[in-house]
């Protein structure tokens, strides 16, 4: 059942073949649907039209306004969540008792979709960027704080005992034992927080906003500009993918160091 390292070349090629076939079938179905089966263009725009709209959006620079708003909201939310999450997480991790008190609390809150509280944030901060930043920071806080608690709290006790027995001061303990030991887990938490902050910002823009990429897609849907909407969807998916790849590289680089 567990795959062995050297699959016969045939199987590897065949499985990649299936993947390619999947994409091809999807694309062909899309083309057929719009050109041959006459699915209404209100529901499913023509891939050619979508491509044209995408090119137009990029060339005209129309995307810049919304992209800038979304990105600034996202970055602000992530920074706030990181600062709060790491600080709170570190201090909670210092005491096994505090960990026992707070860890289940964090886990329970994180288990529910916090986006649920968006209307409350909108009521207090309005439809502008503030509510998105606040909600994004709230949602992003949890994976960061939980991973920080685990990262610092789960350092092998033998290591801290050894350092202590050799006379390490508190600062030395933090710099040379706690920080390097906790770093992989904390980084993984930051990575989750990163992704979650981005998705939550786009999600809140979709539900209640006056600007930003999420809002733009909704706007186009309401105006039934299907092709342009699909173009923006493709654009946003690409942006998310690029950002995710970027953070992966940062994480890999940090680990290597």
């Amino acid at each position, binding site marked *: 059942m567990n795959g062995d390292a050297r699959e016969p070349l045939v199987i590897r090629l065949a499985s990649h073949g299936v993947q390619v076939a999947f994409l091809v079938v999807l694309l062909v179905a899309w083309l057929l649907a719009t050109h041959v089966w006459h699915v209404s263009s209100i529901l499913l725009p023509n891939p050619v039209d979508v491509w044209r709209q995408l090119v137009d959006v990029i060339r005209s620079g129309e995307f810049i306004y919304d992209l800038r708003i979304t990105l600034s909201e996202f970055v602000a939310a992530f920074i706030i969540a990181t600062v709060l999450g790491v600080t709170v997480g570190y201090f909670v991790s210092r005491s096994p008792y505090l960990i026992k008190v707070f860890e289940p609390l964090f886990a329970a809150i994180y288990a529910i979709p916090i986006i649920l509280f968006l209307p409350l944030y909108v009521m207090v901060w309005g439809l502008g960027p503030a509510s998105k930043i606040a909600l994004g920071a709230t949602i992003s806080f949890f994976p960061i704080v939980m991973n920080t608690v685990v990262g610092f709290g789960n350092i092998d006790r*033998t290591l801290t*005992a050894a350092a202590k*027995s050799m*006379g390490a001061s508190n600062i030395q303990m933090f710099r*040379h034992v706690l920080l*390097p030991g906790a770093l992989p887990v904390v980084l993984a938490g930051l990575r989750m927080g990163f992704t979650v902050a981005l998705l939550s910002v786009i999600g809140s823009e979709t539900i209640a906003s006056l600007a930003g990429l999420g809002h733009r897609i909704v706007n186009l849907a309401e105006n039934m500009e299907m092709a342009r909407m699909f173009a923006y969807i493709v654009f946003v998916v690409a942006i998310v993918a690029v950002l995710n790849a970027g953070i992966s590289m940062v994480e890999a680089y940090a680990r290597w160091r």
Partner: protein
Amino acid sequence: MTSAETAICVRDVSHQFGEAGQARYVQALKNTSLDVARGELHCLIGPSGCGKSTLLSVIGGLTTPTTGTVTVGDKAVRGPMPRDLAFVFQENALFPWNTVFENIVLGMKFQGVPKAERRERARRALEAVGLDAFAEHFPGQLSGGMRQRAALARALSLETDILLMDEPFGALDEQTRMVLGEDLSVLLSRSRKTIVFVTHSLGEAVFLADRVAVFSARPGTIKDIITIDEPHPRKPSFMTAPKFHALRDRLYGLLHDEIRKSMTETAQPRRRYGEAAENTGDAA
């Protein structure tokens, strides 16, 4: 024994974890007293959970006992004393993100050794254990036996008079244990270090120790002390001598009932839903 000859003096140490009545309450040690002479290798042996590792931790200042005192030389132990005592743990005590060499240098940094001396001392310590070729390796790249030698090198580099070793060869296979035991004996004959050595292994205790303190089952107290009169460095041939077997049998006779007693105790309290496993700390 005069106080000049006593390196470590343990008086009436008792230690418990948790409060009486709590699920995790454990009385690890009860009225334990011990004198460790300067320059001897003193073994602590006993069944699982008898508190020998806890006692080592108390001696080293990492655990404050519920009652009782420990004196090292003429100083009372109130916390870690990096200039006087160096630990060698069973495993995982090397920082995995540093090379072997960096690990040793870092240990000296903690102790407060001046920067100029560190690298030279680290080199010498690695040579003493035969690991100089592996200085730039990471602990994860080394075998268990080599890791423990590196841990020993780190302890040696701190140039303390006393070494506290908590089952240092416990995670290794028997063959490696035997070889490292011989090396330790050679080391002891060359330096005048005092070593307190916790072990489970009867053979190891008889082979290495000048004196063996036998612990009772939990709550641990010292039942008896056996003297092994054989000069260091001890050769492998010692293990086949009749004297060795007699001592080993005597040790087993003392331990036998205690081992049976300890086997009927449960290791962990029953967990309630939602509780993570309790960490009973240093109970061993």
